[in-house]
């Protein structure tokens, strides 16, 4: 690889300035307080990037991943030269085209043709250069029939295509891409990817900012992970995205457990309301009301669920599971007085509110006899065969006729992760087999 990098960031810090709570600053108040100069000076700062260094070798495709607000777009703007670093240096070698916002300079009233010219000139081409590439641009954007219509009549897809076509035909040495592939239909995305592939083959440098980790793994030679304005990792894209995903899971876990803690606190504070009219109590099975009431807690309080824990196979409480992993739902229950009619139940709902699975001890023929004092009830799920998504859990203890003692409706959340993007609700254990002499599959990557 060429030792001279195409893009080099050395100890770059970017501090965004907030100007004197400027929403409320008017010229009048500035004059009254004689603070015009102070107001033009930043008095509140927000570091978007802190001491970030990385170099993008010439001809490589470089991915930048990170959460929203991690500084990715700021880094891109610095490389594009739209903003200047507060400290540190940004060095760029070669002509840049930034796909930050497609068609940013289009004027709605004038035709696509004129906009192509103006946009091309804005991006650094001369009029003659645009002239020479014009047919190619129109061809790529598939807008031959509409090129003389005003841009305001274009659909958003056409608008994007034209913007992309112009930007890519600037023939840059370095292409900066900010999440533009998220827009446009399937066909357009493919076309963009093809074009990127072509760029790569021609030895151009691409800096790609995206949330699509698959894209980074597939396309990039190297990746950097920005978190909260600092560089967390850099190197092989698979390794970097892997570290990023693990971190996202950890954060999600924190977030979900925070939500649970809140739900538990609320549930604990509120005395179980006696027969709150949250839903009709069905006489059969006791599950009918599950479909009608919103989240919350109700019941007569004869038996109380004092704690709910979701655990993995190591017995650690967690809220993030991978498809196929075991999960245990542990209920700690307390009966103040002796009860003889009690059923424990649980239900899993997906994000759309569809009941994925519901069961109780009565259905599964564990007939309650007597219960007083404290007890622990465990529902051990051997394998969580669900597709990726966020799920909510109902737990309840009620009478056989459905009259609830303590009903926790959708109070607990867990997340199922999967490497695969299969769809549906339930993921039956399965495998594919093939027979036949003339059918072959490529070796897995």
């Amino acid at each position, binding site marked *: 690889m060429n030792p001279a990098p195409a893009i080099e960031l050395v100890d770059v810090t970017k501090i965004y300035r907030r100007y004197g709570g400027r929403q409320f600053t008017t010229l009048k108040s500035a004059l009254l307080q004689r603070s015009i100069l102070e107001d033009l000076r930043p008095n509140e700062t927000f570091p978007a990037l802190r001491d970030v260094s990385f170099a993008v070798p010439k001809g490589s495709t470089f991915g930048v991943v990170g959460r929203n607000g991690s500084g990715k777009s700021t880094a891109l703007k610095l490389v594009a030269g*739209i903003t200047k670093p507060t400290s540190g240096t940004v060095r760029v070698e070669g002509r840049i085209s930034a796909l930050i916002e497609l068609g940013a300079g289009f004027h709605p009233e004038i035709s696509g043709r004129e906009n192509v010219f103006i946009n091309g000139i804005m*991006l650094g081409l001369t009029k003659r250069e645009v002239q020479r590439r014009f047919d190619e641009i129109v061809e790529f954007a598939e807008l031959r029939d509409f090129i003389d219509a005003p841009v305001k009549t274009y659909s958003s897809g056409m608008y994007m295509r034209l913007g992309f076509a112009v930007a890519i035909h600037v023939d840059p040495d370095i292409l900066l891409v900010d999440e533009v592939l998220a827009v446009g239909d399937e066909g357009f995305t493919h076309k963009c990817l093809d074009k990127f592939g072509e760029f790569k083959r021609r030895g151009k440098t691409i800096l790609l900012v995206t949330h699509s980790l698959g894209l980074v793994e597939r396309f990039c030679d190297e990746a950097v992970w920005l978190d909260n304005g600092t560089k967390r990792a850099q190197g092989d894209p698979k390794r970097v995205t892997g570290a990023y995903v693990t971190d996202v899971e950890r954060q999600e876990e924190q977030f979900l457990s925070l939500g649970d803690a809140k739900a538990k606190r609320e549930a604990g504070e509120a005395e179980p309301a006696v027969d709150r009219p949250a839903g009709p109590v069905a006489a059969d099975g006791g599950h009918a009301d599950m479909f009608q009431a919103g989240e919350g807690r109700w019941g007569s309080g004869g038996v109380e669920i004092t704690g709910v824990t979701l655990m993995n196979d190591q017995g650690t409480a967690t809220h993030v599971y991978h498809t196929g992993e075991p999960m245990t739902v542990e209920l700690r229950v307390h009966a103040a007085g002796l009860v003889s009619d009690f059923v424990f139940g649980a239900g899993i709902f997906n994000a759309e509110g569809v009941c994925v699975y519901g069961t109780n001890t009565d259905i599964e023929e564990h007939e309650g006899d007597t219960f007083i004092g404290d007890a622990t009830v465990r529902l051990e799920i051997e394998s969580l065969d669900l597709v990726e998504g966020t799920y909510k859990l109902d737990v309840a203890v009620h009478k056989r006729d459905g009259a609830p003692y303590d009903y926790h409706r959708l109070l607990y959340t867990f997340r199922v992760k999967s490497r695969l993007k299969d769809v549906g609700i339930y993921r039956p254990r399965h495998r594919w087999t093939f027979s036949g002499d003339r059918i072959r599959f490529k070796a897995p990557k």
Partner: protein
Amino acid sequence: MWHNLARLARYRGLIQSLVARELKARYRGSFLGFFWSFVNPLLLLIIYSVVFSVFLPNRVEGVQPYGVFLFCGLLPWTWFSTALNEASGVLISGGNLIKKVLFPAEVLPIVTVLANMVHFFFGLPILALFLVWFTVFPATSVDPDTGRVVQHAIALHWQELVWLPLVIATQLVLTTGLALFLSALTVHFRDIRDIVSNLLTFWFFATPIIYPWFMENLDGYRWFFNLNPFTHLAVSYQEILFFPENEFGHWRWLLALVFASVGVFIAGYWVFDRLRDSFAEVV
């Protein structure tokens, strides 16, 4: 700052196409299209002529026909005031470009000034048409005291007309300097837009456009009028185009204004350049 100013020269192609776009977009979709650029000043001039000769006859000696006199000052004023009004908001409305495209922001106020200058140029032939008409066929009125018919001569002299490009160039430099200053400050203080539009109304009446510079009522306030740069522009236009003397008497003031305008431009550009880095963040 000088480096950036030099860089601006490389963007003249862009400025050119943006001015063209601005003009095209303004009349796009209208039936008369570009023709409006001529029709607007023509109609305005006809209206003034009719109002001030029939309904509200202006009998001030020396400014007849009054509609044409008025138009000589009004046409450049329209360029000046429209450009400043538009420029004060142009960085905010063009924020998308500043934030998303590597783009020298000063192009935007400059394009505003130039686009309005082109409109001014479209108005000039209309004005010339009337000037020639009244030179060939002098306007007449009846003196109410003596009952005699008075002829009002206006005359175009080439000795004076050679000054016109300098007057226009001075106005361009002055307007651009102010436009840069206002557009940059408006990013931080949005109130400036409203202040500017009101200030311009006041400024209009404080400039000898609807009344002639030689009116005696002005005598006590001449120092004030002399401080107003547009006084000298308006008087220059009027002397060159309207008044029948064949000498341009206001040239000393005009030359002083040339230097002042360059000063305003440099100051405006300096402020703009100082605030430049904040645009992409604040807009």
